[in-house]
């Protein structure tokens, strides 16, 4: 077991053991070990094409690893599909925003709520008192979440008509609506200006504390990652080349050579 579980004190939520995936001849991720502890905020960084998003896709079941093992809550992923894993408690956002374009802000979140609904096809048709109450509950919880993120006032807007930053936040709200225990954020600050980024950093920490969940964060913006993450893992060419606290990573010569050196001087 890696340093993760020891650091966090609590149990390990997510664990990758020597995970490898190959697409044809290309090894996108190679023998990566990674663990995220309960309530931990872990950063995953690396140059473009290092395999960060591929790791996300492996963890969420979009891809199956060629070798190695992924487990969540000590239960192995096996061949579970993405929606099964969401049910288990893994939620994600996407690098290229994937909101439901035909739906309102409200409905985008409502759709994510249906995972825990107590009624389905039959009730939807009969529309009896119970269904009405359940729908009312769902609506209440959707609004609650939207208000926390200051999106309540745009509930009826088309999701894709929101400003970019709001869309990114809506994706986080939508993911939270599935009541995850682990939240994967794929470059949430992409395309944001410095003010928005600062607000986002605060938001991520808030979310993690308020909902008591673990977060795995892929991000290019070093300042953001360094400021919010307790621990950082670095990928290069699909391999993990370093892991440690933000301070350790900043000083790691290998990381500086691969990535930080250039980025840090830009930033």
């Amino acid at each position, binding site marked *: 077991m890696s340093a993760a579980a020891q650091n966090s004190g609590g149990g390990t939520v997510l664990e990758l053991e020597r995970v490898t995936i190959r697409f044809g001849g290309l090894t996108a991720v190679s023998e990566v070990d990674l663990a995220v502890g309960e309530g931990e905020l872990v950063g995953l960084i690396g140059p473009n094409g290092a395999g960060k998003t591929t790791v996300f896709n492996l963890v969420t079941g979009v891809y199956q690893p060629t070798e190695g093992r992924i487990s969540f809550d000590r239960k192995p992923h096996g061949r579970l599909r993405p*929606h099964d894993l*969401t049910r288990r408690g893994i939620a994600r956002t996407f690098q290229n925003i994937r909101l*439901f374009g*035909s*739906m309102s802000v409200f409905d985008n979140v409502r759709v*994510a709520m249906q995972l825990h609904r107590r009624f389905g096809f039959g009730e939807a*048709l009969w*529309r009896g008192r119970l269904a*009405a109450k359940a729908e009312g509950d769902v609506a209440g919880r959707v609004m609650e979440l939207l208000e926390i993120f200051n999106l309540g006032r745009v509930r009826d807007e088309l999701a894709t008509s929101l400003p970019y930053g709001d869309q990114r936040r809506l994706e986080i709200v939508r993911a939270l609506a599935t009541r995850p225990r682990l939240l994967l954020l794929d470059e949430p600050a992409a395309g944001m200006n410095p003010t928005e980024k600062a607000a986002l950093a605060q938001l991520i920490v808030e979310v993690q504390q308020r909902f008591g969940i673990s977060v795995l964060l892929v991000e290019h913006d070093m300042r953001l990652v360094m400021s919010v993450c307790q621990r950082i893992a670095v990928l290069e060419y699909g391999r993990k080349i370093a892991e440690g606290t933000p301070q350790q990573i900043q000083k790691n010569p290998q990381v500086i050579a691969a990535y930080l050196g250039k980025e840090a001087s830009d930033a």
Partner: protein
Amino acid sequence: MEKLMNNGGSNGAKRWLLLGLVLVAVVSAFSGMINRYYLGVLVEAGVNVTLAVSLNLINGYTGQFSLGHGGFMAVGAYLAAKLTLLFGPALPPALQPVLFAGALLCGGMGAALAGLLVGVPSLRLRGDYLAVVTLAFGEIIRVVFQNSPAFGAATGLSGIAPWTNFFWSWSVALVTVYVVLALVHSTYGRGFLAVNDDEIAASAMGINPVRYKVTAFVVGAFFAGVAGGLFAHLKRAINPEGFNFMRSIDVVVMVILGGMGNTAGVVVAAVLLTLLPELLRGFSEYRMIVYSLLIITLMLLRPQGLFGRSSKGGRL
């Protein structure tokens, strides 16, 4: 109509459905006053509304592209007609509506079963490929009927009781509209739209896309089957050629014309397209040419349909 289903999600919509059914019954009671010919067209319009609205669940809301609605319709038409032909003559007139309702339900269920079969390939197939498979299924169903002596083989069934009237046709249409709207406006049913919008994001939200797609196929096919049963008891004779690929295309055109995923628009389009051939009756030689030109012009000028809100539905 959309607003109606949203409000509270409670009994409001159901009340409107009941009111609609009463209205249909009243009109039906006075239908003797309507010119027989126009009445026939109106009854057929109701059948087409059912077909189009149910296909809209599959093609419009869920974003699959089914070209098999003619096949589902055939299953319903043949099953229902066979049942009433078998049991109808022996029955006292008072029980005929019961038999008819039962036959329509059986037809719908048979079609739903076919819909389940067709929906299963959606596990693996997308877009064009799924469209091709639905087309193939529709054709297979037709060929099977064409070769079944029990269903009259190539000549089909005739002498079917003329039980489809204004009441039956439009109450089924109303129920279909209600079911589709109630579904897609519920929290459960928003999943259909999510699958249409972005399958990957939908599954990341815990939605099982396959289950939703298969459900859409089953529900859509059920109502296509009921519509088939109505059709059989309206035309009084059916044959396999009547349910070929062209029939499926007709329904697809209604959905496109109305606007994918826009139930109100699809209802209007189904009625309009039923009336159109009648309006062009004077130029019967040209009416199908006009029909095809209408499709082309519509696609060139207004691809989102006459009543579509946006250019959604880009997916095949």
